[in-house]
Each structure stands twice: as C-alpha cells, then as structure tokens.
C-alpha cells in the first residue's frame, strides 16, 4: 500500500501536496463543493489550533511540577545517604556478632550430630530387642512371612554385631523363636490338610530360613505324598458318584494338587541352583520328583482302574469313556507341563484294560444269555411235551435261539465299537496292546463265545446230562445253522467293524476252523440224539423181552404192544426230525425193496422163492434138530457183505431215523440171544419181526439193512429156541395186518 496510498491528496499524510490538492479540488469539484471544503478546512484549522494551545499549557505545568519533585528528591537522597551509612556500620556489628555466635555454637552442633546418630542406633537396638516379642506376635498372628522377613533383616545385624555378648542374648532368643517357628512351620508343612498352595508357601519360608534344601525337598515330597494319599482315600469313598463326577473330582483335587506340587517343587528345587548343595542335587531332585510323580499317578490310576473295573459292565460305557477321555486329556496336558518328567503309566492302558474287561464282561454276559436261552429252550421243550411238540414249534425254537443269539452278539460287537470312536483323544488301535485288544474282541469275545457255544452244546451230547432228546435235536440244528451261516456272518461283521484283516493273519482263527468245530458239535449232538432215542427204544424192547416168560407163552395171536409202541415212537421221531431236515434230497435214494408195491415180499424170502437171492434170509430151511444152522448162518455171513451197523449219522431225516432203528434192533437182537424160547415164543418173535419189517421200511432208505437185522433177530431166536418151528408166513401176515 504505502506510497500508493499516500496520495498527495490526503491532508493527514506526510506527502500532502497542497498545490496538487488544490488543483485537483478545483478541477474536480463544483464551486459549491469547494466552498464547503474551504469552510471545513477553516474549521479544522481552528480546532487544531486551540488543541495545540491547550497541550502546550499542560506541558508547561508538568514541567514545573517535575522540577519541584527533583528538588525534593535531592534533599531526600542526602538524608538517605546518612541512613545507609548508619546501616553499614550496624551490619558490620551484626557480622561480628554472628561470627562470634557461630564460634560458640560449633561444639554443640557436632554433639547434636552424634546424638542423632545414637538415636537411630538406639532405634535399631530397640528393634532388635523387641524383635523376639514382635516375632512372637507375628507368629501368633500367623503372619509368618513378615516374621521371616524381620528375622532375616535382623540376621544381617546379628551378622555384624553378633559377637557382642549383649546381642548374643537377643540373637539366642530370636534363634529360639525362629527355631520354634521353624518347628511350627515344619509341623504345618507336615500337617495333613494343607492345600498344596500353602505347602508351597511354607516351603518357600522354610527355604528362606536356611532349611537344608535336600531335606526339605524330600520332606516336601513325603508331605505332599501324604496329602495326596488323603485325596486318594477321599476319592476312594466316592463310590456313589458316577464316573464323570469321579474323574472330575480327581482332576480338580488330586491332579491339580499334584501338578501344583510338582511345579512348585520343580521351581523350588530343580530350576534354582543352590550353592551349598552338592552338584548333582538338581539331578537328584529331578529324579526324586520323577519317582514321586510316577508313584502318585500310578496310585491314582490304580484307583481309577479299580473304579473302572468295578464299574465296567454295569454303567453306561459311553459315560465312562467320556470320563476317561477327559482324564486322558488332562494327563496329556500334565505331561506337557511337567517337561523333563516322564509319566510312565498311561490312561490308554486303563482304557485298554477297561476294553478287555468289558469284553470279558460281555463275554460273560453272552454266556449267561446263552445259558438263559438254553434253559428257556429246555423249558419250552419240557412244557411243550404235554401238547405233543410238533416240528414247527421246534423250528420256532431254533430260529428263536439262533436269532436272539445272533442279535445279542451283534449288539455286543456294536457296543464295543464305542472304544474306537474317532472323537476320543486316545486311539486304542495305535498302541500294540490296543491292537491286541481289538484282536481280542474278535478272538476272545466272538470266537471264544462261538467256541463256548460249541463246548456247552457238546456238553449236552454227554449222555450223563439227561437232556431231553428234542433239545439235542434243536441244538444240533442250531449248530448246523451257525456253521452254514451264522459263523460267517458274525466273523465278517467283526472283521468289517473293527477292520481286521483275518484272511491274511497267521494268529487269528480262521472261519473254517470254527465252522468245523460247529459241524463237529452238530454231529456229536446228532449222534447223541440218535443214541438217546435209540436207547429209549432199546429200553422198551429190552424190558419187553426180559420180562416175558418166553418158554410158557401161548401161541401168538397179535403183535406185542411194545412193537406197536416202538413203531409209533419212531413215527413221532420221524415227524419231528422231518420238520427240521428236509427229505427232498433223499426221496429218490430209497433202495429197490421199498419201491416194491408189495410189502409181502419179505416172507417170500423165507420160502426161498424170491428173486433177491443175494439176500440171506432163508429160514425156511431150518428144522428144529438142524445142527448145521450155525454153519448156515456163518456161510451166509461169508457171502454177504458185512453190514456196518454203527456209523455216524448224516444230517438227514432218513439217516437219523435209521440210526435209531439200528440201535433198537441191535438191542432186540442182544436181548433175544439172552433168552430161551419155546415154539410159541419163537413164533411171537417172528410175528413181531414181521410187524417191524412191515412198518419200518417207510422210515429208511436202505431196507436191506433193516431186513438184515430182523433176520439176525429171527435167526438168533431160532438158535435160542428149544423147538424151532416157525409159523406159517400167511398166518403171520394175517396177524400183523390185523394189528
């Protein structure tokens, strides 16, 4: 702005140019305006003028007054100078005085210093002298930490002045008190009922009190062990809690304490270095700790194991496994905390043990169940006897027994699968023992059970067990079904569920082994059945032959009742057996004789007119006096094939019934040989034999065998007859047909 603004036209500025201003004014403005401007300027000038006058006047007055003032000041200063001089002199006297005083006070001050020093010393001495009391008080208040701190504080002093006799007393007092304290701490340390937390604290205090580290270390462990033992005992009593609660209690109480003890021990003794201990102290401490830890974990795990063992098979396995899983996790975590320590025992062992035990329990369960269902079958058979046990009911029993057994086994197998659930933190199969355990499920549980079945069933085949014959039949059939189907299904199931490769394993039992065993059992049961039924029939026949007076009987008029009963019995056996074993396969196998429509051909054998000459039954040749009869029979023997009477029966109706018939007829033969017959006795036998011959053909496939045995019977009767005169075949036939 500056110069540009400092126009020469502004009257107030310094660059005002009156001429230019006038020139411009004249140039620019009208006259009127000029006149006005002139008036204004005049007026301004006048005002300014008067202002100037006033100002001058005022300044003058002020100057006058100022002069006056200066004059007055001149006078004052003179007086002041006097005063100052006076002050100076006074000050000089003060200084001298002050110097004087300082000189006099010098001695006192050093004394004061000494005094204050002494004061503080006295204070400390007082602390020392009251220390015993204070310590006592602190101890009474159980403020041990403070007491120890104080004592340690005092300790330094004692270290300094300990030699003086006066302190010696105090020191002794203090030591005594502290010894007391130590004692008390130690008692506390040892006293059961302290938490691990307080234990650590006390441990720390004792350490500060210069307790021997190694002693303390071992003591700590023993005390902790005691305490943990109490915990264990407490846990032992918690029988009514369920497994999860039990494990939780263990984790919260025992394991936490243990972890605390271990960590504090570790911090106190292992991690720190103590100069006054032997070099290997830390190693030893670690070693001790390890032992301690393992001992306690062992104890606890033993407890858990006991618990598991007592619980398994009763409670819910799932819950127990969950609890064990939790425990496993906790121990795993603990293992991480206690680095440098190795916990030998593992929960997995317990779990495997539990699995084993559960397997055993299940096995027992299965066996019990099996025994139950067996007795149920038995009962059903016994009660069914009243209303004639028909084949269908037997079939029902078999399917029932079979199906429930299969279901039960499947259920158990599925039940045990819980051990292998993938969300558990443990993996049984990973461990060798565990893998064995899984194999054990297959081997001990399934195979073992199947073997057990075979064994128990085999036990029934022992004739001394007096089992009802139909039971044998039912069991035999069940075994057969197991062999043909069940074993395969179950083994495939277990292999599938547990991913066992049994085909390529050398140690695992192969399916065929079990099948063979089952088949063997079925066979022996069937044999036993045949034996039992055979001996039932035998018994009837034997009694009938033994009790009759064959020498004094009348001419036969009818078939003896026992023969009819035998045939009836065989008939009912056949219906039962037929319902279980289909005969379709054997229908066409019946040997020639039966296809003969005429049942009468048998007797033509006796008359020697029959075309079946190879068959030796030519009793018509005999005369009572014929001595050669035995030769004849022997010669017949030579030319006929040896008939093997006793062979194992097959799983078919015909074979079973035939087996029974063979036993019965053989018995009849033996009984006949033990008796002596009159003519009519022989004829009665003849009638009976013919009746049997007429009726038995329909049960058997090979009629020749029956005929052979009947011939033997009749032959023997002829031998044993005093007067061997046979009846007319036609008469025999008529009697038999009459029934």
């Amino acid at each position, binding site marked *: 702005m500056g110069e540009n603004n400092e126009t020469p036209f502004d009257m107030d500025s310094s660059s005002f140019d009156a001429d230019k201003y006038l020139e411009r004014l004249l140039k620019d403005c009208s006259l009127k305006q000029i006149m006005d401007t002139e008036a204004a300027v005049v007026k301004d000038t006048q005002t300014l003028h008067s202002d100037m006058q006033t100002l001058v006047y005022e300044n003058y007055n002020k100057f006058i007054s100022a002069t006056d003032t200066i004059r007055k000041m001149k006078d004052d200063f003179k007086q002041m100078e006097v005063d100052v001089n006076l002050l100076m002199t006074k000050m000089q006297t003060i200084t001298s005085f002050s110097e004087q005083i300082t000189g006099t006070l010098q001695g006192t001050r050093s004394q004061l210093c000494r005094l204050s020093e002494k004061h503080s010393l006295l204070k400390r001495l007082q602390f020392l002298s009251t220390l015993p009391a204070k310590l006592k008080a602190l101890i009474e208040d159980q403020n041990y930490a403070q007491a120890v701190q104080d004592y340690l504080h005092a300790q330094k002093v004692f270290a300094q002045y300990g030699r003086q006799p006066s302190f010696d007393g105090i020191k002794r007092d203090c030591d005594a008190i502290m010894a007391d304290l130590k004692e008390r701490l130690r008692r506390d340390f040892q006293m059961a009922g302290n938490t691990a937390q307080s234990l650590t604290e006390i441990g720390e205090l004792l350490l500060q009190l210069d307790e021997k580290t190694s002693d303390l270390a071992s003591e700590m462990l023993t005390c902790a062990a005691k305490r943990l033992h109490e915990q264990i005992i407490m846990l032992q009593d918690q029988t009514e809690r369920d497994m999860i609660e039990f494990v939780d209690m263990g984790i919260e109480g025992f394991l936490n304490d243990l972890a605390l003890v271990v960590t504090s021990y570790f911090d106190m003794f292992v991690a720190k270095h103590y100069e006054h201990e032997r070099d290997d102290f830390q190693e030893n401490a670690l070693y001790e700790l390890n032992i301690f830890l393992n001992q306690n974990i062992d104890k606890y795990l033993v407890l858990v194991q006991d618990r598991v063992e007592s619980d398994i098979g009763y409670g819910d396995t799932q819950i127990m496994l969950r609890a064990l899983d939790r425990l496993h996790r906790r121990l795993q975590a603990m293992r991480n905390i206690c680095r440098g320590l190795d916990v030998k025992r593992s929960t997995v062992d317990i779990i495997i043990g539990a699995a084993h035990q559960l397997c055993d329990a299940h096995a027992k369960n299965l066996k019990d169940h099996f025994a139950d269902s067996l007795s149920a079958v038995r009962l059903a058979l016994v009660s069914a006897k009243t209303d004639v046990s028909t084949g269908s009911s037997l079939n029902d029993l078999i399917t029932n027994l079979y199906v429930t057994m299969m279901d039960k086994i499947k259920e158990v197998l599925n039940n045990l699968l819980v051990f292998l659930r993938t969300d558990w933190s443990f993996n049984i199969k990973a461990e060798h023992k565990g893998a064995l355990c899984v194999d054990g499920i297959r081997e001990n549980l399934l195979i073992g059970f199947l073997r057990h079945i075979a064994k128990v069933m085999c036990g029934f085949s022992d004739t001394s067990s007096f089992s009802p014959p139909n039971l044998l039949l039912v069991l035999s059939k069940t075994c057969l079904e197991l062999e043909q189907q069940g074993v395969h299904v179950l083994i495939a199931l277990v292999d599938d569920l547990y991913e066992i490769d049994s085909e390529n394993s050398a140690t695992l039992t192969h399916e065929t082994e079990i099948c063979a065993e089952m088949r063997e059992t079925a066979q022996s049961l069937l044999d036993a059945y045949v034996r039992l039924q055979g*001996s039932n029939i035998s*018994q009837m026949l034997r009694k009938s032959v033994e009790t009759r007076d064959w020498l004094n009987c009348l001419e036969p008029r009818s078939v003896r009742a026992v023969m009819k009963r035998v045939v009836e019995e065989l008939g009912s056996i056949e219906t039962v057996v037929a319902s279980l074993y289909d005969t379709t396969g054997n229908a066409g196998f019946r040997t020639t004789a039966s296809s003969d429509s005429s049942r009468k051909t048998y007797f033509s054998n006796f008359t020697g007119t029959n075309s079946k000459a190879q068959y030796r039954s030519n009793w018509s040749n005999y005369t009572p006096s014929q001595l050669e009869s*035995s030769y004849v029979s022997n010669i017949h*023997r030579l030319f006929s094939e040896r008939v093997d*009477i*006793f062979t194992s029966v097959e799983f078919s109706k015909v074979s079973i019934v035939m087996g029974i018939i063979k036993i019965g007829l053989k018995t009849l*033969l033996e009984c006949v040989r033990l008796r002596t017959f009159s003519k009519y006795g022989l004829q009665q036998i003849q009638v009976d034999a013919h009746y049997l011959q007429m009726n038995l053909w329909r049960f058997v496939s090979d009629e020749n065998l029956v005929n052979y045995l009947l011939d033997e019977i009749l032959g023997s009767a002829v*031998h044993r007859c005093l007067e061997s005169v046979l009846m007319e075949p036609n008469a025999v036939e008529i009697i038999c047909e009459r029934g």
Partner: protein
Amino acid sequence: MDENGLIYGLELQARALTPQYGECNEVRFFIATNSLKPTNQVHLLQYNEEQGNIQSKIFEHALGEVWKLNSCPNDARLLASVYNVQNGAQVLTQAALLTLPQNLDSDENEQIKSEYIPWAQVEKLDTGRLGERVKTIEFHPSQEQTMGCVIDNKLAIMQRAESSTRVVAEVSSTGSSTKHMSPFTTGKWSHHHQGHQFLALHDCSVRAYDVRDVQHCAWSIEEAHGQLVRDVDCNPNKQCHLATGGDDGYLKVWDCRMPKAPVFARSDHSHWVWSVRFNTFHDQLILSSSSDCKVLLTCAGSVSSEAEGTSASGLESTISAGMDDRRKLFLDGLLQTFDQHEDSVYCVEWSNVDPWIFASLSYDGRVIISKVPKQYKYQIIF
C-alpha cells in the same frame, strides 16, 4: 498174527471165555459154548507164540449150555461153569465145578484127540435152595476154598471145605408195584480191601458188599451207567480203582472213594459194552468188548497206577520220572480198534501170563488171540 490176530473157530455159539489163571507159564484160555443143541463143549486153548498157532483140548460140557466160565487162580485144574438146565417148562441156571485131569499133556490124550477128554471130577453146586438163576461163580483171588456166588437177587459166599453157604446180601425190589424184581447182573471179588469185598452189579449201580457181615454194603456207585452195568473189573495195581462197562456204551473208570463221578469215561462203543478188563501189568491199557462187534483197546494213562504222582512205590516213581516226556505223548483215549469179529463180542480177556496178549470171543464162536500193537508196546515199555 501180529496185526490181525490168530483165529480159532468154534462150531457153536459161545459166550464164556476165561484165562487159566492157575497156569503161569503157558498162554491158555478156556472157552465154552452156549448152544441149546446137545453137547456143549469146553475148549482149552493154548497159544504157542513160536509156532504162531493154537492148540486146543476139547472137553464135553454135558450139563448144558455154558453162560459163564471162571478159572480158579489157585488151582490150575479147577473151573467153575454156569449153565442152563431145562426143567420142564422152566429153564434153571446152575453151576458146577469142573476139574481137569491131572496128566493133561500126556500122550494117551493125544491118541484120542477126536474124542472129548473126560473131566477128572464134576461137582454140581447145590444152588437150588438159593435161587433159580446163577449169574456167576467167582473164585476168591487168594482163599482157595472160598467162592462168591451171585444168584438171582442174592449174593452167597461158599466155603468148599466146610461145604457151607451163607447169603451175605440180597436186594429186594425197590418199587412196591414192580412185579419183576431186578436181580444182580453179575459180580466179582474186589482185589482190594484184603479180599473182604465183593462187587456186585445191580441194574445201573455197582455195590461192594463186605462179605464178613450180612447185608453190609461197604460202598456203592449208584447210577454208574445210564443203563444196565454189564461188567466190572478192578485195577489190580491201584487201590480203589475199577472199570465198568454198560449198556449205554460207556467205559468208565471209577475211584470207589468218589462214587459221584467217574475219573475216566469213554464212549467209543456204539452198543452195549459186555466186558471190560484192565491189563494186569500195565493197567493204563483197558480192553472192552461190545455188541457192536468191536474190541477196543483204550489207554487210561491219567488214572493208571503208572500215572505221574500217583505211583505207589518209590522205585516206580524214579523210573517214571525219566519217562515222563514220552508218556505225555501217550494220551488218554482210544488206541486201537480190533474189528475182525463179525458178531457181538461178549468176552475179552488178557492173558494172565503174557501182558501183551489177549483173547476175544464173539457169539458166532470165533476166538481171536491178538497182541497189543508193537508201537504201543514199545511206548509203554521204554
């Protein structure tokens, strides 16, 4: 003959076989026929091992068909036979003592080979008072004059010297309504208990009677078999052990102190077991014969006197100690089946002279003299 046995055939049916117990050098057996036809015979068979043949001497048994034959252990010439006699409409079973002639081996007998050799003496026993059916006459193992006689439901002890007979036991029908009273099946002297006990078989049970007293049953095994007990034999070397065979086809070995259950049982036979015999020397070997036409040689090593720990004498135990391993392999069970018979085998007997030889007799009159197979023999000896 080693494997198949030597066969001797009779023309008639036969049920009676016994070794000649009084003979101690030759292997000899008596057999007797059981036929209603006249002229039953008793054959004395002598087995000649070197020549491998059987020589026989034939006697007539004119009294009737022989059901049971026993030889006296103290008198080689004495035999007891039990035979049937027909008495009108009744058949009675009686017993007689037969004495062999003194000079059996002399030449004059050879000359009349075709004829029957006559008996030196035939003494019918007076059993008519006791009952109708004699089951067996058993010579006392040590007292020559004493015989046990099982007759119907009675057991009588006969003293030949005093010709006295005394009934020591009698079973009566148990059920009130049973019309038919079941008699004793047969009996045998017990080798144990100083010969004071007589084992009698009754239906399914075995009973031991103390013969010094009347009706004194020392012990009994009830329900020894599921059905009739056919035969019993004492283990000659082991106290209290006896074997039984029954109609249920079982062969059982019992300890009479434990009558509840047998100590050994096998059911290899498929029909009645008619006869069981312990081997006199090696009592783990048991022979049994059955109406399934088979003779079975069974090993019951676990209950034999040679079994470990139970051997009676110290000497034996020291010997057996070294043999344990081998014996272990010699398991209990069926050793051998002899199936050359074609009819029911009612009798089987070990030779009393050679422990490896035995004879079996089937109804068709076939006697087979067999040996224990060599492999078993060696296993037992070594």
